[in-house]
């Protein structure tokens, strides 16, 4: 076991970890040693090819195919320098006031989240794309919304020099998306924070992180780790967990911390989503241009959000219901396909949680509540109306029977699209907004941390990622993750004197 010694060790380099790394980089100038451990690899710009298979393998946990315990939903999350910010689409929204107020976490005010969010939005160059960069897929959505009375809003996006390659979820091949891999982590490294990739934190002991560094496998993308492969015991004055909702919950569970914080792993939520497609009569620009420029927010009124989207051939094929000749015909219509992503706003529900199996691997238990199914069905009906109003000839709706609806069926959408056709395990559902597991709250009886990411009863252990959400956010979450991580970093700085004191680190690396 190789020994190392640091003042602060941050586990994970995504929206949360990257933010904390940058916010704590000032400690380095004060003589402190700050380390980020990231289990994923560091890719060179030229390795972002946009190839569906290669990039899914290189950037996602389980190549993007991580399934919930009963196999009925796919959870997408990154495993790479920059975490899920490498594969996110970059839509940047401030948390709704009503949601933060509903969370009612003592000490967490909406104004504070908003102020920090806006700071990171400026840092990430968040802005609206100009009209001339919008593609037909997005324009048709806006047109359909206008005709059906839905209020379409434009997404602010965090891009700089976007070329409209439409490949955001495969990692931007043009370095245009301002994830932590482009902004916060490089800034932190310039200020002396060390980032070690291919380094997985296996468990946490008292002020110690036990980690394993992997070799670069033959044919694998990315640079070798900054450290020699092997097992490490890293002493740390403060440990900040930022492995994401699933990663952090699993790490703390396999470290035996459920005894100290019994709520660990509970409260997992995720905005279950599915992709709807419709055939337009002629080819449209869909796989060129930024894929996600508009949305309809019906979260408060009807429990769903609609977003424009565009996916790649395999993901599209997988998300259409059924198979065989009719499925193939739809795939061959690819240049004519308009797409909408429907997202249900779920709520933390008993039993929906992150656990670990005998080998310490995360297992996510998740059941669709009736409310989620109803939200997805309502969202599908709304989308079908929008598609037809935008001129579509056929709409593929997974919760319709048959799933392919033509214009003659327009006046029967409410009866054709129905909860009774929602058969989990047959319909493809996926989620990319993973939240909860180490929720904030008052004490260990109702939560894992306080509103500053301090784990109850363990002053040197902090959390700074989406696992902090005590319930669903009902909008795209990365900006809020950054705001919460910024709070965690602030508390670390405030407590550093007491926790690190005259601590002297051994310079072994």
């Amino acid at each position, binding site marked *: 076991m190789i020994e190392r010694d640091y003042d602060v060790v941050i586990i994970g380099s995504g929206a949360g970890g990257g933010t904390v790394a940058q916010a704590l980089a000032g400690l380095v100038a004060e003589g402190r040693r700050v380390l980020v451990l990231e289990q994923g690899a560091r890719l060179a710009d030229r390795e972002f090819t*946009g190839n569906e*298979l290669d990039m899914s393998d290189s950037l996602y946990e*389980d190549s993007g195919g991580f399934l919930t315990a009963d196999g009925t939903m796919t959870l997408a999350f990154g495993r790479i320098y920059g975490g899920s910010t490498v594969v996110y689409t970059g839509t940047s929204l401030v948390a709704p006031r009503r949601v933060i107020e509903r969370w009612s976490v003592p000490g967490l005010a909406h104004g504070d989240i908003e102020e920090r969010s806006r700071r990171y939005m400026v840092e990430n160059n968040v802005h609206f794309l100009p009209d001339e960069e919008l593609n037909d897929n997005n324009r048709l959505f806006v047109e359909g919304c206008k005709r059906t009375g839905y209020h379409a809003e434009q997404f602010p996006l965090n891009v700089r020099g976007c070329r409209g390659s439409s490949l955001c979820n495969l990692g931007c091949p043009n370095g245009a998306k301002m994830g932590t891999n482009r902004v916060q982590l490089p800034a932190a490294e310039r200020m002396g924070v060390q980032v070690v990739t291919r380094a997985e934190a296996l468990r946490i002991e008292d002020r110690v992180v036990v980690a394993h560094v992997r070799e670069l496998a033959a*044919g694998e993308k990315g640079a070798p780790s900054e450290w020699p492969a092997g097992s490490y015991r890293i002493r740390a004055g403060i440990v900040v967990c930022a492995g994401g909702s699933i990663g952090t919950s699993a790490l703390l569970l396999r470290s035996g911390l459920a005894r100290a914080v019994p709520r660990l792993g509970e409260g997992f939520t995720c905005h279950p989503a599915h992709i709807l497609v419709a055939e337009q009569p002629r080819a449209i620009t869909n796989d*060129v241009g930024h894929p996600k420029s508009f949305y309809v927010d019906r979260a408060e009124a009807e429990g769903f959000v609609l977003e424009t989207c565009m996916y790649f051939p395999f993901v599209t094929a997988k998300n259409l219901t059924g198979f065989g000749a009719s499925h193939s015909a739809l795939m061959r219509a690819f240049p004519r396909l308009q797409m909408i992503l429907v997202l249900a706003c779920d709520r933390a529900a008993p039993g929906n949680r992150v656990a670990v199996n005998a080998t310490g691997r995360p297992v996510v238990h998740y059941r669709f509540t009736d409310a989620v199914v109803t939200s997805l069905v309502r969202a599908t009906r709304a989308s079908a109306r929008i598609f037809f109003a935008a001129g579509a000839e056929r709409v593929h709706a997974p919760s319709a029977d048959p799933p392919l609806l033509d214009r003659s069926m327009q006046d029967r959408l409410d009866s054709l699209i129905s909860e009774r056709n929602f058969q989990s395990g047959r319909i493809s559902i996926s989620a990319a907004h993973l939240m909860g597991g180490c929720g904030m709250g008052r004490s260990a009886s109702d939560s894992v941390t306080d509103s500053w990411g301090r784990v109850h009863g363990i002053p040197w252990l902090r959390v700074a990622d989406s696992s902090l959400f005590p319930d669903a956010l009902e909008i795209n979450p990365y900006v809020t993750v950054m705001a919460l991580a910024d709070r965690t970093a602030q508390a670390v700085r405030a407590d550093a004197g007491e926790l690190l004191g005259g601590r002297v680190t051994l310079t072994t690396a």
Partner: protein
Amino acid sequence: MVGVGGATVIPGGDRFRAIMAAVVPESVSLSDDEWTDAAAIIARAIAARPAAVRRQLGLFLRALDLVALVRHGRGLRSLSAAKRTALLESLARSRVLALRRGVWGVRTLAFMGYYARPAAARAIGYRASPAGWAGVRARSGVQ
């Protein structure tokens, strides 16, 4: 060959090809080389799954043969394409979650083998490229 390293042979390969033909009918006209590419993609994906998932897949493929035998008196591979498709469709709508999930799993693998090949993506008209708008303008000759 698409993909790097790892397994290239699908466990239960013949059965899988029969399923693929039902899931993506045009896969029957894949050349030997194209099928080798598709099979390598599927084999690698299976090899990368946790052991429990691999076991479930093996069991499901055997169960499919058994159901075919009970319903039609012959194994899955010897069924006509129409019967094979009908059998998979009935299981996809089964009341038993494990069966629905099983069909979903094998169809997902079949789609991966077929559509994740760049040639198949091009064939359906998928054009996304890092060049984005500039690529479209170049293709259409617009400056």
